[in-house]
Every structure is written in C-alpha cells, then in structure tokens.
C-alpha cells in the first residue's frame, strides 16, 4: 500500500490474493481456494490493471501518493488493529480440534442446489445487474444534440 507505482501495487495485491488462496487450501476449503484464485487473481486483478491502463495513472508521477489526511487514516487503521488484536488475544477461544475430512465439492454443490438455491439465484441476478450497470456507467455517453 505504500508503493508509488500503481502497477506494482496491483501485482503485490495479486501476490497477497494467492497467499490467501493458499491459506484457504490449507484450511481445507478447496473450492473456496480455487474460487479465490479464479475470481481475484483472474478477474479482479486484471480488471484493476485495465482500469489503471485506461485512466493512464501508471508510471511514476510527481504528485504525492498519499492524500492530505493520511496521518489520521494511518492512526485510525492502527487503532483498529490494536483493538482487534486486543479483543482476539484476550478472548478465551476454545477450538474443537476436529480433524475433519476436507469438504468435498460435491457437498458444496448439493448445498448450493438445495438449501442455498434461492440465494444462488439472487446472486446470479445481482451479478447480471452489476455487470450491465458497470457497462452502462462506463460507456462513453453520446452527445445530446
């Protein structure tokens, strides 16, 4: 987040996403791990690179990278981390150390088709609406006569 070149920022972000996907795989959530790689590494990072390219904000520029109120932003973020870490460490977490078998993709598919069928449909509708909306918003507007 401190890098000046935007392309470097997106590449570092992609590396972070890959690391998170590896964590998901380690936690036994294979499907989510591969979805993470497909969606984030494959789609969101490419989308960000395209946006950087189209707004011509790549490359070193002379303007300062941080906004005028960056000190308060950093302070807020640090305070958030401190509070979260304090809450996590001071809470008494008892984990049931269950060595469960890895969640199979078949079980996920069954759940998606039975218990979560309606959310899945709503999700498809939302994605369609979001994509159409994004295209309409980003389309060059025709000049009114």
């Amino acid at each position, binding site marked *: 987040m401190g890098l000046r070149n935007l392309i470097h920022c997106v590449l570092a972000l992609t590396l972070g996403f890959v690391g*998170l996907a590896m*964590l998901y795989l380690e*936690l036994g959530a294979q499907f989510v791990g591969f979805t993470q790689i497909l*969606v984030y590494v494959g789609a969101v990072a490419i*989308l960000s690179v395209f946006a950087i390219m189209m*707004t011509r904000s790549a490359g070193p520029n002379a303007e300062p990278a941080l906004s005028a109120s960056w000190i308060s932003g950093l302070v807020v973020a640090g305070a958030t981390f401190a509070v979260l870490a304090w809450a996590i460490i001071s809470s008494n977490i008892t984990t*049931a150390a269950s060595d469960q078998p890895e969640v199979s993709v078949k079980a996920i598919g069954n*759940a998606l088709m039975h218990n979560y069928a309606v959310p899945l449909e709503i999700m498809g509708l939302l994605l369609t609406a979001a*994509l159409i909306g994004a295209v309409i918003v980003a389309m060059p507007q025709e000049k009114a006569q």
Partner: protein
Amino acid sequence: MSPLTGYLLLSAMIFSIGLAGALSRRNAILVLIGIELMLNAANLNFIAFCRYGPNPAALTGIMFTIFSIGIAAAEAAVGLGIILAVYRHTKNTDLDQMNSMKG
C-alpha cells in the same frame, strides 16, 4: 496460542492494511483495492471459524464466503466502472481533487 488465534490475528492485520490503504491513498483505484483487501480479511475469518468451529460439516462459513466473493466481484466491476466515468469527466483519479458533485 491456538491456530484459530493466529488466523484471526492475520485477518485483523490484513483488514488494517486495507483500511490504511483505503483511508490514506490519493488514487481512487487504490482505495477500491483497499476495500477488496478488507473483504478478503472477512472471508479469511469466515473460513477459519468454519474450520475450527463446533460444526464444520454445516458448510455455513464456506457458503457465506462464496457469496461474499461474488458480491466483491460485482462491487469491483461497478466501482471501476464509476472510476472510469469520473475519469472521463475530470481527467484524473485523484480523490483530493474530486470535491464537486456537479459535473
């Protein structure tokens, strides 16, 4: 320290990094990227709790994460579209200079 605590601490750290980026960068694209990082931290929490929770076979955390990834993709698409539209108006993506709501 149990492994769940480690995952929660890592998730809190990712969230804070995303928050710092979203609050302190000038470029609108990087602010969007910071928001994506915060969503990812929440996803990691879901997966960790699902794995170490009392009932890991219920798949609730994994389902929530799948839907959350979908929402995040939609959010990224719409956000970048809005950034492109704003760029076409003002010819830059500097958030400090976007201070008028009237094009």
